């Protein structure tokens, strides 16, 4: 278990916690990365301000892999455009595809996501598509060249936990790529559960941004993710559907 690495597009990571950087102070990023033990952090691309006094890149510690997302994209074409601009910003080839037509539930458009994955993978990007957990779509994403598959646990920013747990389990069991649970994970216990199920990693943002103390919550998530991973690698104990099974010897009782 010493050599347990997360491998995405040939890149190896020790951490299985992908950190979001939205909705909290830039000044907290360094502590968040440190306490989360994160080696990958997500970013968004937006119109730049001429009067920008501070840039997020100045707050991200050296050596952390940047994972730009394509948020704001409503179709594959827009996602491809944002991904290319992100790469032009000069911070690597990773991209998290995020395509939404719906602004109420922020659900990903799986079909457009497959199209964008195919284009960006062919351009050499390490493509990590955010998707609604559907086995057929996940298989299409594999064929399109994805480096990982990122199913949602619950709507973005909801902190509701593993609403789609059974379907994520199917992806874990059937897809031969890292399954990274993204969106909706609100508590360390939910992250731990997803890792016990065999998820390769957890991505979280709102759970930290809305926590009482961000660095402490980042650490709680790190510990939960590590615990869940160890439990998965160990192999969970079996569950009895009926009855009980004593843990103590059934002999030598203090009676005749």
């Amino acid at each position: 278990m010493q050599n347990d690495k997360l491998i995405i597009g040939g890149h190896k990571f020790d951490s299985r916690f992908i950190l979001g950087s939205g909705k909290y102070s830039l000044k907290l990023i360094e502590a968040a990365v440190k306490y989360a033990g994160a080696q990958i952090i997500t970013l968004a691309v937006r119109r730049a301000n001429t009067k920008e006094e501070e840039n997020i890149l100045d707050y991200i510690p050296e050596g952390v892999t940047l994972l730009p997302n394509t948020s704001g994209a409503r179709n594959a074409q827009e996602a491809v455009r944002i991904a290319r601009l992100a790469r032009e910003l000069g911070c690597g080839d990773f991209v998290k595809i995020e395509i939404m037509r719906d602004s109420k539930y922020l659900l990903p458009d799986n079909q457009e996501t497959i199209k964008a994955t195919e284009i960006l993978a062919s351009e050499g990007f390490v493509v990590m598509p955010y998707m609604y957990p559907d086995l057929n779509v996940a298989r299409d994403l594999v064929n399109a060249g994805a480096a990982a598959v990122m199913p949602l646990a619950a709507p973005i920013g909801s902190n509701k936990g593993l609403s789609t747990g059974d379907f994520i389990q199917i992806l874990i069991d059937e897809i031969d790529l890292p399954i990274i649970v993204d969106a909706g994970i609100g508590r360390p216990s939910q992250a731990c559960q997803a890792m016990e199920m065999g998820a390769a990693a957890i991505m979280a943002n709102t759970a930290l941004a809305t926590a009482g103390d961000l660095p402490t919550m980042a650490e709680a998530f790190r510990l939960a993710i590590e615990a869940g991973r160890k439990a998965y690698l160990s192999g969970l104990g079996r569950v009895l559907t009926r009855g009980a099974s004593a843990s103590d010897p059934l002999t030598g009782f203090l009676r005749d």
Partner: protein
Amino acid sequence: MVKINGTELDIAGQTLSEYLSSTDYNIKRIAVERNGDIVPKAMYGETVLQDGDSLEVVGFVGGG
């Protein structure tokens, strides 16, 4: 007129470099798209802005 991030500016005839150096953009932290095509940084000096051009100047921000 040249449109930069949705705002019309009277800068036709300037090079992209000239325009950017007249602003507070941090060149290291931006990417530029002109009429839908990315302009590589090495081309800023020879990219002359034309009347009717539409540019996007983008950078990274926090996000999930």
